[in-house]
Structures are given as structure tokens and as C-alpha cells.
């Protein structure tokens, strides 16, 4: 009995102290995240030579829809080369999740959403500076296995009973667009799954578990060799507009505006169109 007590006494005590330290760290980190202060010197990246204010790095935080990951990554290099001493930091994710983060106080300078509804969430909270501007569009496409073994040629094929079709849930932008096409064409698709993320639809086509999935043109372009895309004219009935806006809380609105200008300008549009986006 006494031996058991010794063992039981020393273990929790040591781990208790470690836990307290961890809890304190979490609390401190939580407090720090909420403050609107700029990044401390030498925080994220080393300042480049010839920066306007030597020894400091300006951080520009961009929350962007996950579908923009590749294109924005390319534009980051251009932007940082043109603006020495600036470090662009991205927060990629589902647009509605990003909107929730911003409304709940995430320190973000620019928001680029995959649909107007999520931008409206932020605008309604009075957090957008100026009016959001559409910078690209995205169109639905059918993702199929490479070589299109099931011979899918159009949207109506997706109603074939021999096909396992995966769609986005109606709650997410790609699902809402797809439901619009169904309504406009009077075609009813019976999917085996309705995913909350367009990337999950793509994964299930890539793995071969779904014969077809309705995704965006940019998603097909992001998985070359793993899926093929099938265009369908009915996709024009539900074109998705991507709005971008500088947020009121930004402590560097002119720099944030430069990012918006790059994205909407010819250089940005070239990169975005290469990724499969359409012009606004």
C-alpha cells in the first residue's frame, strides 16, 4: 500500500507542473494572438538587404480560400520581390471558416473568399474597408479517372445508376452551385456521398472509389495526371465569383491594397488563369 502511494504521489506531481506550464503557455499565446500589434522584429523572416527600415519585417496576413493556394503562392514571390521587407503570410481554408475567424477577431489584412455569401458575412459585421471586388470566377467541372473509363461526356451522365457520384454538400459553395445546375437542368443526381470540402470529392475520385465528382475547374487543374476533367455547358448557369477585400482592422491598408492590385492586375490574372480560374 505505502509503495503504491509513493508511486502515485510523484508521478502526478511532476506531470502536474508540466501541465501547468503548458496551460500557462496556452493562455499567454491566446492573449498575444488577440493584440493588433505588428510582428516583432525578426519574428518570422529575416529582413532582406536594402529594406526601407533595416531590421524590421512587415507582415501582411492574407486569409484566402483553399482553392487559391497554388496561385497565391506564386504571387507571393512576385509581391515580396517588389516590396522588400514584406512577408506575406497566408491563412488558407474553407471560406466560411475563414469568415468566422475574421468576425471573431483573427488579425487579418486581406480576405479573398470563394463566394460572395461568405464575404457578406464579414461585410455585414462592418469589417470590410470599401466594397469587395470580384477578381476571378470559377466554374464547375466533372472530375473523372484518368482516361475517363466510364465514358462520362456531360452532366446528364451523372444520373446514370451504374455510377458512383460524389458531390459537395449544399452548404458549401461547390454544392450550392451544383444544386443550381440540377435545378436548371431538371436532372436529379443520387450521390453516394455529399462532402463538406471540394478536396474530399477530388480525393475520392483520385482513389478510384468514386467514378465521378463535381468539382471546380481549378481543382481538376490541381491534380494533373490523377484526374481528368469533363466540361459541361450547363456549368455556365452557376458561375462562382471570388471577391477580395481589405479589412478595416488592417494596420497597413496601403500595403494590403497593393496585394489586391497585384491580384486584379495583369500579372495576377495571368497566374490565376493558369490555375484554371476565369476572368471576372
Amino acid at each position, binding site marked *: *500500500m505505502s509503495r503504491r502511494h509513493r508511486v502515485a504521489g510523484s508521478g502526478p506531481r511532476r506531470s502536474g507542473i508540466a501541465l501547468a506550464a503548458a*496551460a500557462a503557455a496556452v493562455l499567454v499565446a491566446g492573449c498575444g494572438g488577440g493584440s493588433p500589434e505588428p510582428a516583432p522584429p525578426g519574428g518570422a523572416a529575416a529582413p532582406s538587404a536594402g529594406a526601407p527600415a533595416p531590421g524590421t519585417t512587415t507582415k501582411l496576413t492574407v486569409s484566402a480560400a483553399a482553392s487559391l493556394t497554388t496561385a497565391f503562392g506564386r504571387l507571393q514571390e512576385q509581391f515580396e520581390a517588389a516590396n522588400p521587407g514584406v512577408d506575406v503570410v497566408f491563412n488558407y481554408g474553407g471560406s466560411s*471558416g475563414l469568415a468566422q475567424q475574421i468576425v471573431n477577431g483573427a488579425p487579418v489584412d486581406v480576405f479573398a473568399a470563394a463566394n460572395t455569401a461568405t464575404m457578406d458575412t464579414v461585410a455585414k459585421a462592418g469589417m470590410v474597408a470599401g466594397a469587395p471586388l470580384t477578381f476571378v470566377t470559377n466554374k464547375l467541372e466533372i472530375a473523372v479517372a484518368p482516361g475517363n473509363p466510364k465514358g462520362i461526356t456531360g452532366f446528364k451522365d451523372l444520373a446514370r445508376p451504374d455510377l458512383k457520384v460524389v458531390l459537395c454538400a449544399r452548404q458549401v459553395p461547390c454544392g450550392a452551385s451544383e444544386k443550381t445546375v440540377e435545378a436548371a437542368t431538371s436532372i436529379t443526381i443520387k450521390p*453516394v456521398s*455529399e462532402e463538406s470540402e471540394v478536396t474530399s470529392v477530388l*480525393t*475520392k475520385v483520385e482513389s478510384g472509389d468514386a467514378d465521378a465528382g463535381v468539382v471546380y475547374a481549378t481543382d481538376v487543374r490541381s491534380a494533373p495526371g490523377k484526374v481528368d476533367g469533363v466540361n459541361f455547358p450547363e456549368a455556365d448557369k452557376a458561375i462562382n465569383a471570388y471577391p477580395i477585400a481589405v479589412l478595416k482592422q488592417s494596420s497597413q491598408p496601403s500595403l494590403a491594397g497593393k496585394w489586391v492590385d497585384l491580384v486584379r492586375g495583369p500579372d495576377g490574372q495571368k497566374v490565376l488563369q493558369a490555375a484554371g480560374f476565369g476572368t471576372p
Partner: protein
Amino acid sequence: MRSTDPHLVGVGLPGVLWVPAVLGFGLIALPVVGLVTRTDLARLPELVTSAEALSALELSVRTAATSTLLALLLGGPMAAVLARSRSVAARLARPVVLLPLVLPPVVGGLALLYTLGRAGFGGRLLQLWFGVSVPFTTAAVVLAQTFVSMPFLVVSLEGALRTAGQRYEIVAATLGASPATAFRRVTVPLVLPGLGSGLVLAFARALGEFGATVAFAGSLQGTTRTLPLLVYQEREIDVDGAVALSLVLVVLAVVVIAVARPRAAEGLR
């Protein structure tokens, strides 16, 4: 339960432990308070009784119960083997059994998909021999839940088996009991509290399972869309709805743990 142990009260609890204990409790409990304060109470009954919510709740309870049973049937004997076998195989197997605790659940789901999916080696054999396809079925939900929850039962039960030791089993053997009789009449009753607590943990984990399910089974109302999947999906357009449904999960988990666990820990009396 330790605090009611007369021996421990006699020794006394060092006061300094209260500080980290309260901090830790706050870290876990305060977010739940935050969730409750965010709840739209007026819409709560309507939100949690929608056809979609009830279907998800029913599916969640049914699949979590099935996967707990599966965890008991497979994980129970596995814990006994891990605790008692001195073979190299058992020693090598232990870290593998604990993998689902470390793996992000969504990776577990992808692993299941690449194994039992249409293109996976297991999936091809199932298609060939039985003509069945696992992804997008309720069976896939149960498999995903069992994958992530079984280690909780195994760890809990293996610990109980090791703590219980083999003294009584040896005595039973010297009195003429066969290994099977000793296991059934001595070992199992001794580890009932550990087994009960492992079952409750496994059930609670299965109930909250999200990542592996969504990656492996997909999401379709009535077939694969469990309550956590519905919460994640509702969050996209209706945060109030998602919060209300989350509260159902919280209440369910608290009831299961508060009601079932003390009884289980006392030995399923």
C-alpha cells in the same frame, strides 16, 4: 474516486497541486461554457429535432454502439495477449496498436480508404470474393470508429490486466483450474472496472469520431452522416445550428461518462 480513498486522505494532498489542477480544469471546461453562451436557446428545440439532426443522432448512437461491441470482441482478447504474452510478436505489436492514438484521424481514414477502397488491396479482395464495396456504407463508419476507438479499450484493459498481476491466476491454477477457467473465473472479474472504463472511453471516442469517417465513409444522410459530420457541414451556413448540434454531442458524452463510468469503475455493479 481517489479522493474518497481513506489512505490518501490520511496522507493529505499537497496544496500546490490545486493550482495546475484548477488551470487544467478551466482549459477543458471554459470552452464548453463558451459553447453554451453562443447557443441560441430559442431556436434550440427546433434545431436539434430537425429530421436531418435526428437521423444523424440515431446513426451516431447506432454506429458508436456497434463499434464499441466490435472493439470489445477484438480489442478485449488483444489486450489479454499484449498483457500476458511474452512473445516478440506481442512486443512488436504494441506500438502498432497505439498508432490510431497518434495518427490524425483523417490520415487513418485515408489509410482505410487506400486499403479497403475500390483500388486498395483489401477492397479488391472483398469485391472479388464477396462482391461488396465498403466505402460510402454504414459499415465503413463502424470500421472508421473502431479504428480510432479500439486503442482506448486496449490501453485501459491492458493496464488493468498488468496491475491485477497473475497471483490469483497462479493460485487458481495450483487448485486445478485450466487456463480457460482461470481466465473466465479469476482474470475477467478482476479487470471488470478497467474493462468498463475502457468501454466507456471507446464509446465516447467513437461518438465524436469525425476525421476518419469523413475520409473513409463519406457523408450521406441516414447512411454515413453522423452527428459530428453534420455539425461540421452545418457550420458552413448556420453556425447556430452547428453549435446546437454540438451541444447534443456534449450532453450525450457527459451523460455517458458521468453515468456509466463511475459504475464501470466500481466493477459494473
